[in-house]
C-alpha cells in the first residue's frame, strides 16, 4: 500500500509512525515544503532565545526515518486528482497514492488591516521555521516592535523580543489578556507580570493601519485610539486558521469548509483520503457545529488515529476532556475541562495567594465541577480530569486539591494560604 502524508508536523508524523507499526510493508512517504525534518513548532521560541539549537528542536533522531523506512520528501503539493489517485508536486511531478493524508496544519490569521498589502518587510508571524528565519534576520535592525494578538503565540513572541532587548508594545484587542481561556482576574495577573518585565501592554487597543518607510519596511502602527507607535517589526499573532489555501485550487480535491471536511473517522469525501490535526474540520452527524481543534495534543491524537483508520479500522475520533498548559514568562498555567467555555454566569471558586502570582479557579455548576484554571504552580491534570469525569463537587476538589499538586520536591505550594472568593463566570470576548 502506498501512503502519502502531506505535512511533517506532529499530526503527519504520528500518523506515519502508527501506520508503520500497523503495516511493516506499506510504502510511507511524508511530503513537506517547510522543513526537511519534523521539528517541534512549540519550541520555536527557545531557538529564537538561544536556549536551543535548531537541531535540538527535532524530537526524533534522524536515523529514525531510515530505520522506520519512512521516505521524507521536501516539496509542496500543488494539485491532486482524487479519482486518478495522484497528487502533483511542485518540483517532483506526479505521485500516485492508495491512501492520502492531509496534515497541513494551520496558518496565521491576517485581517484586512489598512496598509498591510504595501508592507514588503518587517511583518512577521511566529508559527513556522520560515517565521523564525524572518524574525532572526530582522532582529538586528529592530529597536522597537509591536506585537498584536493576546494569546499564547503573541506572548511567546513578546518574550523573545524582550530577550533581544527590544522595546515591545503588546496590542490586545480585548479588555484583558486572553479572555478566550482566562478569567479577568488571571488575565490581569498575567498582564501585571508582563509589565514587570517591561512590556508596554495596551488593552482594548487594536491596529487599524500599518505604515511603511520608503523601502517598504514597517515603520509605524496606528491604533484605534489614534496613537502612532513607531516600530521596525510588527508581529501578528491574531490566531490561526486551517492552512487550506493551496487545497482550494486542486483539480479534484476533498470538500472544504473552514478546514478539510472529514467525518468522525477523519475521512474526507474522497475515497482513501484523510485529514487530521489543525487542518481537519470534523462533522459529527446530528451536530450543527463542526469540531476544529487547533492544538498540539489533538493533532498528535488525530494523527495516530488516522494511522489506524488508513487500514479500514473506522474508529471515530472522540475528543477527551480538554486540557492545556503553558508558561507566561515565569507563571505556569494548567487548564482542564471547560472554563471560559462553561455556561455564562456559572459559579466559580477563585482562590489566590496574596502577594504571589498563584491562583486556582474551579468552575462548577452548583453540583459538579466543570473545569480548572490553575496559575503559578504545577498540577497533575490527570487527577483534575478524573474529578471532572467523576462529577465531584467543587468543595470536594478544594478539599482534595493537595492530591493533584505537582510542584517540585520541597516546593509544594502551601494551599492553606490561599484566599477564596466566589465569583460568577463572566465572559468578555467577542
Amino acid at each position: 500500500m502506498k501512503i502519502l502524508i502531506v505535512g511533517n508536523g506532529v499530526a503527519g508524523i504520528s500518523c506515519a509512525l502508527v501506520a508503520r507499526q500497523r503495516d511493516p510493508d506499506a510504502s510511507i512517504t511524508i511530503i513537506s515544503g517547510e522543513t526537511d525534518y519534523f521539528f517541534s513548532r512549540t519550541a520555536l521560541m527557545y531557538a529564537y532565545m538561544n536556549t536551543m539549537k535548531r537541531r535540538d528542536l527535532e524530537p526524533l533522531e534522524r536515523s529514525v526515518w531510515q530505520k522506520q523506512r519512512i521516505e521524507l520528501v521536501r516539496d509542496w503539493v500543488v494539485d491532486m486528482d482524487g479519482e486518478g489517485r495522484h497528487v502533483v508536486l511542485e518540483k517532483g511531478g506526479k505521485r500516485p497514492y492508495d491512501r492520502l493524508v492531509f496534515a497541513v496544519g494551520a496558518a496565521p490569521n491576517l485581517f484586512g488591516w489598512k496598509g498591510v498589502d504595501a508592507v514588503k518587510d518587517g511583518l512577521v508571524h511566529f508559527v513556522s521555521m520560515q517565521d523564525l528565519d524572518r524574525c532572526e534576520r530582522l532582529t538586528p535592525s529592530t529597536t522597537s516592535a509591536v506585537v498584536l494578538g493576546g494569546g499564547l503565540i503573541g506572548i511567546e513572541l513578546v518574550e523573545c523580543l524582550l530577550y533581544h532587548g527590544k522595546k515591545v508594545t503588546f496590542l490586545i484587542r480585548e479588555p484583558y489578556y486572553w479572555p478566550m481561556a482566562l478569567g479577568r482576574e488571571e488575565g490581569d495577573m498575567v498582564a501585571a507580570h508582563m509589565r514587570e518585565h517591561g512590556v508596554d501592554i495596551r488593552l482594548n487597543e487594536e491596529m487599524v493601519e500599518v505604515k511603511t518607510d520608503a523601502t517598504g519596511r514597517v515603520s509605524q502602527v496606528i491604533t484605534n485610539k489614534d496613537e502612532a507607535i513607531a516600530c521596525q517589526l510588527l508581529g501578528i499573532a491574531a490566531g490561526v486558521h486551517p492552512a487550506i489555501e493551496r487545497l482550494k485550487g486542486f483539480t479534484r480535491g476533498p470538500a472544504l469548509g473552514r478546514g478539510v471536511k472529514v467525518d468522525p473517522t477523519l475521512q474526507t469525501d474522497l475515497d482513501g483520503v484523510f485529514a487530521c490535526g489543525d487542518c481537519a474540520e470534523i462533522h459529527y452527524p446530528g451536530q450543527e457545529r463542526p469540531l476544529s481543534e487547533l492544538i498540539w495534543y489533538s493533532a498528535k491524537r488525530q494523527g495516530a488515529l488516522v494511522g489506524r483508520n488508513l487500514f479500514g479500522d473506522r474508529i471515530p475520533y472522540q475528543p477527551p476532556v480538554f486540557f492545556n498548559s503553558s508558561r507566561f514568562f515565569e507563571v505556569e498555567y494548567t487548564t482542564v475541562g471547560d472554563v471560559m467555555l462553561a455556561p455564562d454566569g456559572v459559579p466559580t471558586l477563585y482562590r489566590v495567594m496574596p502577594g504571589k502570582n498563584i491562583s486556582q479557579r474551579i468552575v462548577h455548576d452548583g453540583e459538579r465541577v466543570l473545569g480548572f484554571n490553575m496559575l503559578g504552580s504545577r498540577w497533575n491534570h490527570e487527577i483534575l480530569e478524573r474529578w471532572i469525569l467523576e462529577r465531584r463537587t467543587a468543595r470536594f476538589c478544594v478539599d482534595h486539591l493537595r492530591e493533584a499538586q505537582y510542584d517540585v520536591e520541597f516546593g509544594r505550594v502551601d494551599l492553606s494560604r490561599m484566599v477564596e472568593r466566589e465569583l460568577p463566570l463572566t465572559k468578555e470576548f467577542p
Partner: protein
Amino acid sequence: MVRDTIGGKVLNSIKNRGILAWLIMAALLALYITLYFTAELDGALTGLFGVARSSAWYAVLYSRWTLYGMLYTIGIVFGGAYMFYKYRHNKYQIVRTSVVIFVQVFLAFSLPSLLKFLGQPDYYFSYLWPLKIDYFYPQNILHQPMPFVIYSFVGALVAVPILTIFFGKRWYCSWVCGCGGLANTFGEPWRHLSIKSAWAWRFEKFSIHTVLLVAILTTMFVMLRGFVPGNSGLAEVGYELQTWYGLIVVAVLSGVLGTALYPIGGTRVWCRFFCPMAALLGLIQKLGRFRITVKRDMCISCGMCSTYCEMGIDVRAYAQANKSFTRASCVGCGICSEVCPRGVLRLENKWRRDPQELSMSSFIDESWKRGQTAVSYHTDEVGSLAQTGACERRS
C-alpha cells in the same frame, strides 16, 4: 539566535563551544596537568599569603592539594551563588545547591585541612569506595584511625545501597559528591553540551560498567597483595593494577578530562562515562524507588529537557511516549523538570515500578498506561468510576 550585544556574544562563545570555551578548556587542562604531574604548585599558597615556615599551618598550606581544594571550593561557592540566583523560584534546586555547598566547604575542604593540621590523615567524609578506591586499600585500612575505617566500610557497603534504594543515586551524585557538585555549580553554563545520541548511550553503558569491573578487580588484587603475603605473582598484578588505575582512571579520567572538558564536552563526562561509583549507584537505582514521572499526554516535544540533561538522557523520548522512567545514569539534578514549559516531569520516590522498555523511535503513545478509549484509568480505579457515573462520557 545569539543576543546582539557584547555580553550576549561573550556568553554565547563561552557556552556554545566558541573560541572562549576552547581557551577555558586549555587553561583548565594546563592547571590539571601541572597539578597532577608536576610539583610546581607546591608552596604557591604559602608564597601567596606569605605564611611563615614556623607557622603551624605551613605544612597544610604548602601542599598543592590544599590549593586545589581551595580553588575547587571557590568554584562551587560562586557557581552555587549563580545557581541560587538562576533557580531562585525552584525550592528543590535551592535545597540541593545548599547541601552541595555545605558538603564541599565543610566535609571536603575544611575538615580534611583541619585533620591535616592536627597531624591526622586527611580523610574526606564525602567520598566513598569505589570513587575513592584507596579507602579499601590496605595502606589506608592499616594506617587510618579505626572510626574512619569503619566509616569507609559501613558507608560504602551499607549506607550507599540503602540510601540509593530509597532516594535514587541523586542523594550522592548531585547532592554530596564533589565531582557532581562542581558540575552542578561552576559547570552550570555547559550542561547542555552533553552528547544525546543513541551511540553515546551505547558507549556509556559499555565504558562505565567496564570501569566498575576494573575498579572491583583492582581493589581485590590490591587487598590480596596487602593481606596475603608471599604470593609474588598476585602481588605483581595488584601493584600493576593499582598503578595503572591511579594514572588512567583517577588522574586522567576523573581529574584532567573530567573537569577540563566542561566547556566542550559538557559537565558530566567523568560521571556519565567512567565513574565506578555512578555505575554502582545506577544499578541500585534501577531497583529502587526513584523515578521521573511523566504527566500523560502533556508533552509538546519541545526538547528543553533533553537539551539541558547533563547526562545526555533523551528525556523527551520518554515524555512524548508517556513513559515514567528510571535511567541508571540519571543523577536527579532536577533540571529537566525545571526547564519543562508544561510542567510534565517530576522527580519522585515511589515503590511502584513502571515498564522501562523504550525504543528510540518511540514518539507515539504506546498505550501502556491505558486502554483503547481516549480517557481510561488504571484497573483499580474503574470500579469507583462506574459508581460515580463517569463511564457514560467514556462510551
